[in-house]
């Protein structure tokens, strides 16, 4: 172990010397401590990112030398129906899914913030979708949306909400999009609920007591105390979720693989299809770079506003 090799230094005779020694240590130890992480980020994150940019500007194809072609890939993409459809899907998918997660997440957090029986068990159940491997739990949903044996349709028909045989969830474009969004909400809701709950717990009780004394009802208290004080937490959760929803791969890949007729493709799944399955690395990379502006925007907002409030 590294500790064994380190010499225990005798206490310095004067305080001034001791401080300088410490500083020297820091100047040397600090960079040494971050080097492994830095190397990793440069070689396996920054460098591949530059490669993606190069690919996107070239006519790269699996097993062929590539040449610089400028923005040709992006122009070609805008001419293809599948890409334009994907572009639209990405915004519809992200917008609706995040909206549902915010509304349901706040509701669920408010409920969890009350005195409950079996509090621990309830929390455990709520968080479960978030810890299980998404690819595997999505298989479960795939079976639940199966065209012949769908338990969703069976329940809907049994409850009298659906006419037999019920919708063909994964075979029709609007239903397929709803299914993909539903699974994304299912999987992302725990993150919203638990994080918002942490925000709720930190709101001082006195504020509620004071406003109650002033005669404010529950709705007024929610709008004038809870919501404004939750804003910072909500902002972070929404930003994080926007990136991860926008760049989602697992759910769409397992549930629909982009179909029917590209109606559920997202940038990540189309990247795989174009860049790996048909071997057009250049175009695939160009598609994946569409994730970048959203990433950049979220990082910018986060660095500029959200983190500033904490220091």
């Amino acid at each position, binding site marked *: 172990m590294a500790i064994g090799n380190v010499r225990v230094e005798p206490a310095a005779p004067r305080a001034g010397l001791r401080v300088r020694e410490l500083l020297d240590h820091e100047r040397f130890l600090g960079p040494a401590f971050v080097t*492994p992480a830095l190397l990793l980020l440069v070689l396996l994150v920054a460098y591949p990112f530059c490669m993606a940019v190069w690919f996107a500007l070239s006519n790269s194809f699996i097993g062929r030398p590539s040449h610089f072609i400028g923005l040709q890939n992006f122009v070609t993409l805008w001419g293809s129906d599948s890409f334009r459809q994907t572009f639209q899907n990405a915004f519809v998918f992200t917008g609706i899914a995040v909206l549902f997660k915010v509304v349901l997440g706040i509701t669920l957090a408010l409920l969890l913030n009350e005195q*409950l029986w079996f509090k621990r068990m309830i929390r*455990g159940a709520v968080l479960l979708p978030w810890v299980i491997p998404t690819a595997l739990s999505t298989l479960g949903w795939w079976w639940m949306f199966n065209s012949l044996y769908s338990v969703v349709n069976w329940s809907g028909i049994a409850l009298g909400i659906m006419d037999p045989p019920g919708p063909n969830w994964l075979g029709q474009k609007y239903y397929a999009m709803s299914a993909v969004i539903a699974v994304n909400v299912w999987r992302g809701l725990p993150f919203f609920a638990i994080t918002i709950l942490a925000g709720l717990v930190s709101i001082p009780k006195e504020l509620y007591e004071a406003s109650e004394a002033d005669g404010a009802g529950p709705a007024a208290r929610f709008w004038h105390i809870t919501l404004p004080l939750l804003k910072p937490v909500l902002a972070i959760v929404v930003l994080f979720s926007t990136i991860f929803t926008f760049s989602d791969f697992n759910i769409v890949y397992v549930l629909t693989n982009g179909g029917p007729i590209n109606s559920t493709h997202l940038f990540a799944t189309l990247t795989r299809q174009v860049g790996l399955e048909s071997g057009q690395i250049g175009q695939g990379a160009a598609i994946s770079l569409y994730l970048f502006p959203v990433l950049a925007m979220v990082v910018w907002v986060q660095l500029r506003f959200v983190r500033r409030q904490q220091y």
Partner: protein
Amino acid sequence: MAVRRQPLVRKVLLHLGLLPFLLFAVFPFYHMTLTSLKTDRELYDRASVPLVISQGPTLEHYQKLLWESAFLTWTKNSLMVTVIATTVSVVIGTIAAYALARMKFVGVGAFGTGIFVTYLVPTSLLFLPLAQVVHWVGLADSKWSLVLTYPTFLVPFCTWLLMGYFRTVPKEVEECAMVDGATRLQALWRIVLPMAIPGLVCAVLFAFTLSWNEFIYALTFTSSSEEITASVGVTSELIRGDIYFWGQLMAGAVLGSVPIVILYVFFLDYYVSGLTAGAVK
């Protein structure tokens, strides 16, 4: 009397309000498990009720999965990749986080921002060029490619999480130790790390979960049955052509989740605190 009954009515209503959320969260797992335990005859009988097992449970699908597919190999791969990637990432993350939380040196601010930015970079942005890198270093279709690439998202996560924990350890305790003659490394090992154990447990749990659940890299960088992980094996190898073996597929999904569920049951509170720390700190 009425005053004391009011909260009870309210409490019952609250629980009723929670019920749809709980059903939504848990039902897919219930249905998955149920399906994996049904006989094929019942599974494909459209007249039977899908919510219960009426013709007796069977372990046939699990037996087939374990002895007739390569499921055990996939699980072993997952375990190996996850354990190595987690260990490496937590070590690298710990020292980087300590430097960020405690030390002043040239470029520390830029490095902190860099860590934060990579923490947000989605894996789906980089899998295409990384596949090329993996190919160059000679790890194409090898599980070691995953050991190499998983730290790219685990290290930023661990660093960010642990930085928050290290900041909560009072500086004075450490300075005391150093005045008494301990070196920086000794102070970190003997004083700071023991005090940050909850944070380390959190980092290990999350790194383990994130790499066990990782899908897109595993799907892209590995393909042969001896090298793939559990998630990839179940989703790609158990689906043959147009005929799906739903019982076996669901058994695979259930068993592939078991390691995470075990961790989860024992460390629920750490999951809750880590989840909020990752976002709020």
